[in-house]
C-alpha cells in the first residue's frame, strides 16, 4: 500500500479512536478560577469593523437584559444556579457609569430567566425551582403582580423567556427530565428528593409504549430496584397502551397569555427546553431548544441544540426525536450501548426539520434577531451559547459553545460572531480576559448595539456545577463608525 494512501487512512483511524481514548475536556473542567475576572475586550474576536466593550461587571448570575422607554438598561440576576445555589433574584438597573441599582428583589424561587419591557412594565419569567414557575409583571413603582403561576418547573428545566408580541406574553416551559424518565440524574440535580411526585406533563393526550427503566432505590423505598415509566413519577411503571392525559400548563411547550389577562393558551409543544424566544420582522416566532444529554435512565448521545421556527399547534418531537431524526435510530445511542427505545406508541405528528442545528451541549440559549441594516446581519438570529456543562451532561472532546453565534434562519448556516481569540472555551479556561458564558443577547431599542449577558464563571466536575458569584458581565458590541 502506498504511503500516500496509508497516511490518510491512519489519520482517519486515529480520528475514530479519539472519543473512546480521551477523557472529557469541557469548558468548565479542570479550571482553576476565582471571582476576580480580568476583563480585556482585546481578547475577544468580533468581525472586522466592530468593537466590543464592558458595560457592567460584578453581577451575580445575570440572565436577561431589557431597556425601558428612556433606553436605560435593566438586567435580571437569576437568584438560582445549577449547583443548587439559591439566592434572591433581582431586577437591576445599570447606570451610565456601570454602577448598579437594585430595582426589585424577588422571592427565592428562581431562576429569573429573562425580562422583557413593554409599555412601562417589566415581564419576568420566574423559573420556579422551588415553588413552580411564574410570569410576573413589575411596574415602574416596583409593584409585582403574578400573571401566571404553578408552571411545571420543579425539575431539570424552568420557565423561560418571556417576550411580548401582539398583545400576548409568550414564554417557554422546559421539561422535568432529560428524556422523559426521572432517575439518578434527577436526584443529582437536587429535585427528586424535594418533589418525588414530579414528572413531565404532555400538552395533549399521548399513548405510551410501556417502556420502563430500572434504577437502584433512590428514595429509600426499600425496594432493591425501582421501576419507572415515562411521564410518570419516579418509581411508577407504565404499561403498553397507557394513555397519559394532556393538560395545560404542560412540559416542553411554548405557551402564551393575554397581557390584559385570560386563560393560558398552548402555542406549540414537544420541545425539550425552549429557552430563548424572539419574533422576526415578519412576526414569525423562533425558539432555541436545548438538546438531550447523555445522562440518567435514558441517555441520548449526539443530540444538537436546535433553533426552531415555531408554527402554532405543531409537535416538535420530544422525547422521541431530535429535530426530524428519531433518537431510536443509529447515531443517538451512547457509544457501546443500545439505542434509546421509543417512549410513545404513536407520534402525535411528524416533527419538522429544525431551522438550525448547533453544537451538542453548546447550551444555545437567549437570542435576538437583528432588525437593523446599520448593525448588520439583518434577519439573522444572534444566539448566546452558554457552553457545555461536561462531564455532567456527557463527555466532550473540546469545549463546546462559550461564544455568540449568528444563524441564517433560512439556510441554517451557523457562524461565529463573538468568540475568544485564543480559541474554544471560556476565558477562565484560556486564562484570558474575554467572554466566559454568554447566556442571552438583546439589541438596543434602535438596533445598533448588541448587548451580551455573560453569566460568569461556572466550573464543572464529577461533583457537579460550581458557579462563582459576582463574575457576571454585560458586554456591548457595536459597529465602528
Amino acid at each position, binding site marked *: 500500500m502506498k504511503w500516500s494512501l496509508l497516511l*490518510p487512512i491512519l*489519520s482517519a483511524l486515529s480520528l475514530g479512536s479519539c472519543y473512546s481514548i480521551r477523557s472529557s475536556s469541557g469548558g468548565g473542567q479542570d479550571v482553576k478560577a476565582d471571582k476576580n475576572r480580568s476583563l480585556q475586550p482585546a481578547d475577544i474576536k468580533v468581525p472586522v469593523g466592530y468593537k466590543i466593550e464592558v458595560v457592567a461587571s460584578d453581577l451575580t448570575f445575570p440572565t436577561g437584559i431589557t431597556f425601558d422607554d428612556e433606553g436605560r438598561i435593566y438586567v435580571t440576576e437569576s437568584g438560582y444556579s445549577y449547583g443548587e445555589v439559591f439566592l434572591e433574584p433581582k431586577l437591576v438597573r445599570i447606570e451610565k457609569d456601570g454602577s448598579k441599582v437594585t430595582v426589585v428583589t424577588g422571592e427565592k424561587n428562581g431562576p429569573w430567566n429573562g425580562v422583557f419591557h413593554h409599555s412601562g412594565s417589566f415581564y419576568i419569567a420566574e423559573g420556579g425551582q422551588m415553588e413552580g414557575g411564574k410570569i410576573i409583571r413589575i411596574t415602574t413603582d416596583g409593584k409585582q403582580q403574578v400573571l401566571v403561576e404553578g408552571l411545571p418547573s420543579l425539575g431539570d428545566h424552568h420557565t423561560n423567556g418571556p417576550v411580548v408580541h401582539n398583545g400576548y406574553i409568550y414564554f417557554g416551559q422546559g421539561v422535568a427530565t432529560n428524556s422523559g424518565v426521572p432517575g439518578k440524574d434527577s436526584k443529582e440535580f437536587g429535585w427528586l428528593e424535594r418533589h418525588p411526585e414530579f414528572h413531565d406533563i404532555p400538552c395533549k393526550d399521548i399513548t405510551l409504549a410501556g417502556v420502563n427503566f430500572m434504577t437502584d432505590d433512590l428514595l429509600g423505598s426499600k425496594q432493591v430496584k425501582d421501576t419507572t415509566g415515562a411521564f410518570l413519577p419516579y418509581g411508577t411503571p407504565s404499561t403498553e397502551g397507557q394513555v397519559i392525559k394532556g393538560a395545560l400548563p404542560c412540559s416542553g411547550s411554548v405557551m402564551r397569555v393575554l397581557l390584559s389577562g385570560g386563560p393560558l393558551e398552548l402555542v406549540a409543544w414537544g420541545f425539550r427546553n425552549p429557552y430563548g424566544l424572539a419574533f422576526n420582522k415578519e412576526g414569525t416566532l423562533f425558539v432555541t431548544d436545548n438538546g438531550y444529554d447523555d445522562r440518567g435512565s435514558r441517555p441520548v448521545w449526539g443530540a444538537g441544540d436546535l433553533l426552531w421556527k415555531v408554527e402554532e399547534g405543531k409537535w416538535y418531537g420530544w422525547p422521541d426525536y431530535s429535530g426530524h431524526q428519531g433518537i431510536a435510530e443509529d447515531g443517538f445511542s451512547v457509544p457501546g450501548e443500545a439505542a434509546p427505545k421509543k417512549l410513545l406508541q404513536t407520534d402525535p405528528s411528524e416533527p419538522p426539520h429544525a431551522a438550525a*442545528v448547533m*453544537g451538542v451541549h453548546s447550551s444555545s440559549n437567549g437570542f435576538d434577531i437583528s432588525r437593523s441594516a446599520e448593525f448588520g446581519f439583518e434577519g439573522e438570529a444572534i444566539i448566546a451559547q452558554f457552553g457545555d456543562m461536561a462531564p455532567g451532561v456527557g463527555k466532550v472532546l473540546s469545549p463546546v459553545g462559550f461564544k455568540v453565534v449568528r444563524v441564517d434562519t433560512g439556510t*441554517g448556516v451557523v457562524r461565529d460572531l463573538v*468568540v475568544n481569540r485564543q480559541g474554544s472555551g471560556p476565558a477562565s479556561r484560556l486564562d484570558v480576559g474575554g467572554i466566559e458564558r454568554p447566556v442571552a443577547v438583546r439589541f438596543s431599542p434602535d438596533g445598533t448595539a448588541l448587548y451580551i449577558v455573560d453569566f460568569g464563571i461556572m466550573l464543572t466536575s464529577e461533583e457537579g456545577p460550581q458557579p462563582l458569584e459576582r463574575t457576571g458581565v454585560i458586554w456591548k458590541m457595536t459597529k465602528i463608525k
Partner: protein
Amino acid sequence: MRTLALIALLIICGCSNRIMTPAEDEKLVLSPEAVEGQKVFMEYCNKCHPGGMSGLGPAIINKELPGVLIRAQVRTGLGTMPAFNEEQLAEDELDAIVTYLTSL
C-alpha cells in the same frame, strides 16, 4: 516499531486537544456546490463538529483527508461516529459536503 510509533503519533495528533482558532469565515468564498454542502454539513455534521472544530467529535478542518476517505467515513461510520446511509444523506448531498470540506 517505527510503524507503531507512527500510528501512536497519528492517534495523538488526531486526538490532540490543542486550542484552535475559529475558521476565517469572513474571507471564505465558496463555490455554489460548496454553499449547498455547507447547508447539509450544518444539518448533519455541525452538531458534533461545530464549525468543523472539535466538540463532541474531533476537529475535521485541520486534517486533509481526500474526498474518497471523507465519503467512506460518512457512509460506514468510524468508531463512535455513526454511519449515514443514502436514505439519510443522498449521494448528491454527500458530494456537496465533500466539496465544502475540501474547500476549507
